[in-house]
């Protein structure tokens, strides 16, 4: 029995070349250098800027290592911080709820149409997401069909709007990130051998139990990937808030944008960006630890 186990590990190395050659490093160098210069270095610069203070004219700052900046920034934008994570979480949960049955249907119930359906899921990706979001704004807006109908049947009053509400922002976020949630879920579900589900049925499990005990656990890698791919960009998004929301539903992204371009307060903007990034990294690490995903890339 021990032989078989060793055989399995040695097979992996039969296909990976040994580490005597320099080739992998040569292949990695250009891309990794690019990322170092244009990702790592700027992030470090961001950190450095975050502790600066105004010096003289607008737009000029000097390095004073003022870590108080972080506290000030957080206190001033506490609300938007919480709101960003709240909206992102809501959008992720909704997206998961909508995407999972969809991915399931495509993986198991679509027969010959599987490829067509997959294309249709990715299709929205091909139109500018700004146009899509604006389309929703107009569909759900004052002059759009939805509001008129709902008002006509008295579900909502004459002064209630759908756009310019947190509801619209979350809906927009959910919609925009749906493909990001659906595709990893599909990929994961597709890999499940349908015979394992048949086996469960053979062993007295009904539909729901089969799902809970077999399908769902086996699709977890897809769930993890999908939720990460949705939550991360959603928490930093501000387009949906800008187009579909109102001043009371501003997210952290809007705030950072304002600090950069209108108030021209780079240190505060940098501090907020840094905090956002660190917060996401912590959440992601905890999440991955808990769900046990291995190689992410």
């Amino acid at each position, binding site marked *: 029995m021990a032989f078989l186990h060793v055989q399995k590990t040695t097979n992996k190395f039969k296909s990976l070349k*040994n580490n005597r050659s320099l080739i992998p490093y040569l292949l*990695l160098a250009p891309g990794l250098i690019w990322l170092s210069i244009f990702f790592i270095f700027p992030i470090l610069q961001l950190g450095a800027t975050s502790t600066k203070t105004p010096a003289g004219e607008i737009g000029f700052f000097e390095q004073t290592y003022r870590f108080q900046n972080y506290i000030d920034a957080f206190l001033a934008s506490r609300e938007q911080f919480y709101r960003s994570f709240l909206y992102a979480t809501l959008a992720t949960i909704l997206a998961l709820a909508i995407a999972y049955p969809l991915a399931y249907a495509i993986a198991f119930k679509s027969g010959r149409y599987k490829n067509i359906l997959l294309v249709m899921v990715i299709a929205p990706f091909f139109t500018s997401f700004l146009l899509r979001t604006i389309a929703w704004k107009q569909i759900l807006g004052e002059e759009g069909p939805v509001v008129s109908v709902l008002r006509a049947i008295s579900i909502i009053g004459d002064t209630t709007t759908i756009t310019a509400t947190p509801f619209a922002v979350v809906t927009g976020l959910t919609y925009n990130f749906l493909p990001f949630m659906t595709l990893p879920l599909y990929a994961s579900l597709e890999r499940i051998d349908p015979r394992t589900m048949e086996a469960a049925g053979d062993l007295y499990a009904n539909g729901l139990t089969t799902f809970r005990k077999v399908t769902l656990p086996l699709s977890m890698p897809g769930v993890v990937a999908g939720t990460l791919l949705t939550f991360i960009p959603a928490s930093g998004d501000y387009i949906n808030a800008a187009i579909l929301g109102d001043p009371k539903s501003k997210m952290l992204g809007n705030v950072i944008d304002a600090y950069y371009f209108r108030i021209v307060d780079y240190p505060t903007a*940098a501090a907020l960006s840094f905090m956002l990034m660190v917060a996401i990294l912590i959440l992601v690490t905890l999440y991955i630890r808990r769900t046990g995903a291995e190689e992410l890339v």
Partner: protein
Amino acid sequence: MRSVKRWFSKNLIRIYAFLAFTYIFIPIIYTIIFSFNDGGKSNLAWKGFTLKNWANPCGAPEICTALGNSLKIGLTSTIFATILGTLIAFALGRYQFKGRSSTNLLIFLPMATPEIVLGASLLTMFIGLGIDTGFVTTIIAHIMFCISFVVVTVKARVASLDPRLEQAAMDLYANEWQTFRRVTLPLVAPGIAAAALLAFSLSFDDYIITNFTIGTEITFPKFVFTSAIRGVPAQANVIGASMFFIALAIVIVGQVLASKRKSKV
């Protein structure tokens, strides 16, 4: 009554999928429909069917400059990101080397960082170094955030390549370069093509990072966003719809080619 209930529970999930797809396509259909609207500058309410937007897609001021810029930036970024990313993907997918997990982390981080942080940090760096923002800085930024996506896409393909095919090639007198050229590359090509397509769409559609690095120039997403307040002109819908149909065509052609290779006679 029983059979209706039966039919329902059997097809529940199919019904649901149908509804979900409808939901997905509503704004797209709306966009396409309104590209035919005779709506003037703001295109907010339906005023009548017309083909003149399609006849004159550059009618709105600046729109074609924006589109041109987005295409130029997209193509340039795609080429470089695809090359750099493919090289990394090969390194990760084929070789065992020290620093493997650090590399994985470095590739993963940009995907885990919100766009606003990526954009803000780049802007900070450019300002700090006294570099003016514009075309070049945007291309630099786009290459940066596309590399990771290219790596993930190509690496999946490289990893699924049966190593015995390359061994068979060497067994049949092909040296390392010939093996790569005649066996490895053709088999990985679809993955590279998919990665390039992905990179292009990410770049073309990007607003947040571009907003930080584009300075006073304009791209298509920026055009749409800034005109959102006044009302997006129908020509933007025309361009959006066209992109949709072109991309759809590309994907369908890709599917047809892939299935042709697999068809059993």
